[in-house]
């Protein structure tokens, strides 16, 4: 069965500093991977997705993630964060043969001025 682990429940980081939010998944087959963001008091929106091809995926707002099959990871990175990046970030996984999407518990990113 699929599962998603986000080891860091909270990540404080200073403005303009780089950040990495970690995501690991478990699956015995190939996967699709996603990062969603939830800004305060808003709904979830897609940041980026990996379906196939290049393992480095670029998303909106300067975020990128790298799929590492051997480490079953899909860590999210941004070289310089802004106050507006303060939000909850969710990693998610699904299998190509089945649409069900499993979400991780989320990481709360707080950007400190």
């Amino acid at each position, binding site marked *: 069965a699929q599962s998603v682990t986000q080891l860091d429940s909270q990540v404080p980081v200073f403005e303009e500093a780089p950040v990495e939010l970690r995501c690991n998944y478990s699956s015995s087959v190939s996967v699709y991977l*996603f990062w969603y963001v939830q800004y305060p008091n808003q709904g*979830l929106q897609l940041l980026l997705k990996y379906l196939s091809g290049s393992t480095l995926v670029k998303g909106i707002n300067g975020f990128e993630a790298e799929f590492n099959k051997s480490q079953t990871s899909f860590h999210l990175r941004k070289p310089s964060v802004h106050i507006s990046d303060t939000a909850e970030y969710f990693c998610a996984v699904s299998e190509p043969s089945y649409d*069900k*999407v499993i*979400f991780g*518990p989320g990481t709360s990113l707080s950007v400190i001025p």
Partner: protein
Amino acid sequence: GAGVSQSPSNKVTEKGKDVELRCDPISGHTALYWYRQSLGQGLEFLIYFQGNSAPDKSGLPSDRFSAERTGGSVSTLTIQRTQQEDSAVYLCASSLAPREQYFGPGTRLTVT
């Protein structure tokens, strides 16, 4: 175009009452999902509809929860005999392919 809509946006109900939450997916999206998000928690999968296939109900927490999707479009999540632990934000999402989900704004349910 129109996104996923959910109604009501807020619902306060007394313990023991039944509630119905509605989701209007994006037109043409074949898949529809319901999730529950409790305060400070992640997304708990509840149920998944795909086209005319039987729904995946594996995430429903008890038999008090049920959902239907009429005509492959609108979905209703029903919670019978609500309990205080049912208080949460209920999120609906729809997708076409492949798997990118579009979320509604959610319904905040408070059981008093």
